[in-house]
């Protein structure tokens, strides 16, 4: 089994699958963070009418089953759907949309909680030191960086490990939309356990490496 496993790592198909997984999840996470971190920070910093509704919506989004997201995106991108003209169904672009929808509420809601949890006295302290509104907000977000990092880590984990949405929207087409999770399902069904295991190990290594990177980034923000 172990010799089989080692040969599986050399299969060129594996490289393509890993590459596509990183591209899809990386892009989805990037978009989710680009919108989710500022939005979450804003929700954690300011008070406004309807805030509870927005919070409730985000919390609900955190618990959305990926397969339901996949179904929703499938309907949107299908030929008869409102975005059918984009022709993104069964393409990496469609998979990115699905994973972004999965990752976004996690990033936004957990960032909001982390920022709202920063001691209010920090605002006054930073105000008194001459920070502008933007600098004040950025300082508070930096103070919440452990929570914000946790938000990104959680979103990354949810996106890279989900299978339902990418299976529905991507279709698991070899060389085109096959990612680690859908490939594991396929190879397990085919009885190719060595390949499935190899992919599983790669998935865990990627998750470990990505989290290590994020934690290092969090540490560097604390040093400056």
């Amino acid at each position: 089994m172990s010799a089989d496993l080692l040969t599986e790592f050399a299969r060129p198909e594996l490289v393509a699958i890993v590459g596509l997984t990183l591209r899809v999840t990386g892009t989805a996470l990037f978009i989710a963070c680009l919108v989710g971190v500022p939005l979450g920070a804003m929700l954690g910093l300011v008070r406004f009418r309807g805030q509870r509704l927005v919070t409730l919506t985000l919390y609900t989004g955190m618990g959305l089953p990926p397969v339901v997201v996949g179904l929703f995106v499938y309907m949107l991108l299908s030929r008869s759907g409102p975005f059918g003209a984009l022709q993104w169904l069964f393409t990496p672009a469609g998979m990115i949309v699905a994973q972004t929808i999965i990752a976004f509420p996690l990033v936004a809601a957990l960032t909001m909680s982390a920022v709202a949890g920063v001691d209010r006295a920090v605002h006054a302290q930073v105000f008194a030191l001459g920070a502008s509104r933007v600098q004040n907000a950025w300082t508070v977000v930096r103070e919440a960086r452990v929570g914000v990092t946790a938000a990104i880590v959680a979103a990354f984990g949810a996106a890279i490990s989900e299978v339902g949405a990418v299976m529905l929207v991507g279709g698991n087409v070899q060389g085109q939309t096959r990612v680690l999770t859908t490939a594991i399902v396929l190879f397990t069904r085919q009885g190719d356990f060595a390949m499935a295991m190899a992919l599983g190990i790669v998935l865990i290594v990627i998750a470990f490496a990505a989290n290590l990177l994020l934690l290092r980034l969090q540490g560097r923000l604390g040093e400056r």
Partner: protein
Amino acid sequence: MTGAEAVYRLESVEHRYGDRVVLQIDHLEVVRGETLCVVGPSGSGKSTLLRLLQFLERPTTGRVAFDSHEGGPDVSLEVRRQITTVFQRPIVLDRSVRANVGYGLRVRGIRDHATKVDELLTALGLSALASMPARTLSGGEVQRVAFGRALAFEPSVLLLDEPTANLDPRNARLVEDLIRERQRRGVTILLATHQTFQARRLGHRTAFLLDGRIVETGPTQEFFSAPRDPRTRAFLTGDMIY
């Protein structure tokens, strides 16, 4: 101080938290370059007064003017950056001691501040702790970091809320020496303290605040040698004033 230029002017200021009136000042001026010590027992409104002067809050009624500017949290950044507060319980950011001391310079866009920060760290006896996470420091060390952080960007107004409350006599002396240095440079200082001896050592003028009201204000020497109000006399002699 008649004829001298007022930096702050408070007129008919009343500040409430809910139904509770915490500050009621008919008239108060703080003159440029002076050190006004505000003494009074805990809960007399000293910290609230400093919060209004820092423009963290707007008074419920009345006006707090800084130079010609009307005060409030929306006061311009340019005005705000002339003033800073060392709070009684300062908050240090989750960064190194050096980064904390340099924070005010950084937000002002002054990147090349290593020399300035190092000077202050040395003056405050914090050089050995420069790279330490500020949140791991003791209360007294945090107080010194907060003081250094406030001095770093050379504010023209320093609001000090019990700045030596957490310090041992040696470090209190160190901080008082730095306050004197700022006095010589013409910085306007408002020092809230319950330590009457500190007011005596540092104040040009001293005001006695009790239950949110200024009971008496006068030149420090006169204030301590011949207080006019019996409540001031009682406070200065350590008698119970309640």
